[in-house]
């Protein structure tokens, strides 16, 4: 009986991972995060290459290793949410570039986008403590200039956003891989 209960719980977890499969392809977030880190360190063109090429390679990697599953959520709200997050972060970048406010707005807005994204993207699998660590990192970095830990400007915000994306991406990828099973040969 206990074995059956465990098997059924595993199956429900697998179904939850299938439902949030798009979001759990975390290595794509890792490359975007790595690109942002390179940009923050002063190599924006390298950052763009890593994000673009890495993203394309990793989309193909997930397709080849695990196949494709189309979620029940329609594409339009997801694209809308990603677009809104991009606009928020771009606005934060502009505000931080001009140092109009004493805190860094890019990581603060990014943290808000992460929280909204968690509600949309992880409806079935939920979030882990590492996801909240990423949000905490963003919030803390936004007050870095007040604490004298960073000079005003967009670099620290970009760096924090990149690191947060790497954390979330690695955790998501590990969750996906832990659920997927090796395919036996006939």
């Amino acid at each position, binding site marked *: 009986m206990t074995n059956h209960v465990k098997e059924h719980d595993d199956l429900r977890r*697998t179904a939850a991972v299938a439902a949030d499969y798009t979001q759990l392809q975390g290595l794509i977030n890792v490359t975007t995060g790595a690109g942002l880190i390179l940009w923050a360190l002063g190599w924006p063109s390298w950052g763009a290459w890593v994000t673009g090429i890495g993203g394309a390679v990793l989309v193909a990697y997930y397709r080849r290793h695990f196949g494709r*599953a*189309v979620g029940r959520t329609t594409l339009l709200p997801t694209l809308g949410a990603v677009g809104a997050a991009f606009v928020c972060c771009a606005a934060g970048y502009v505000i931080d570039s001009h140092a109009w406010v004493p805190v860094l707005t890019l990581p603060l807005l990014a943290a808000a986008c992460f929280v909204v994204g968690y509600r949309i993207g992880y409806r079935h699998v939920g979030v882990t403590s590492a996801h909240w660590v990423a949000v905490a990192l963003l919030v803390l970095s936004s007050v870095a200039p007040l604490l004298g830990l960073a000079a005003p400007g967009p670099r620290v915000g970009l760096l924090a956003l990149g690191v947060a994306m790497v954390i979330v991406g690695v955790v998501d990828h590990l969750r996906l891989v832990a659920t*997927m*099973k090796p*395919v036996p040969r006939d």
Partner: protein
Amino acid sequence: MTEPAVGPGSGPEPRLDLEVDRLVHEPARLGILTVLSSVRSAEFLFLQSALGLSKGNLSSHLSRLEAGGLVEITKKFVGKKPQTTASISEAGAAAVERYWRQLDQLRELGRPVG
């Protein structure tokens, strides 16, 4: 098994539906239906990786589910490679939902009183 249970002084309780559908009950088929119920469609490889089933095993279970009207299979060629995609039918969604409800009822019955 499906007789109405009568509680003490509270009138008849809802009828327990514990007659399981054998097509759904088999673990691999239950897995396929449960995974498909959480997505709009999934490729053959995705189902294989999610459930750890071999090609032949998955193929035979999908055929049985398709014959029972619980899943819909689409086959096409991408370049020279065949690509099989499966999705759950309305009947399949209802069947798997009923199965999980029955299972939850059984768990409730097995829980110690008090």
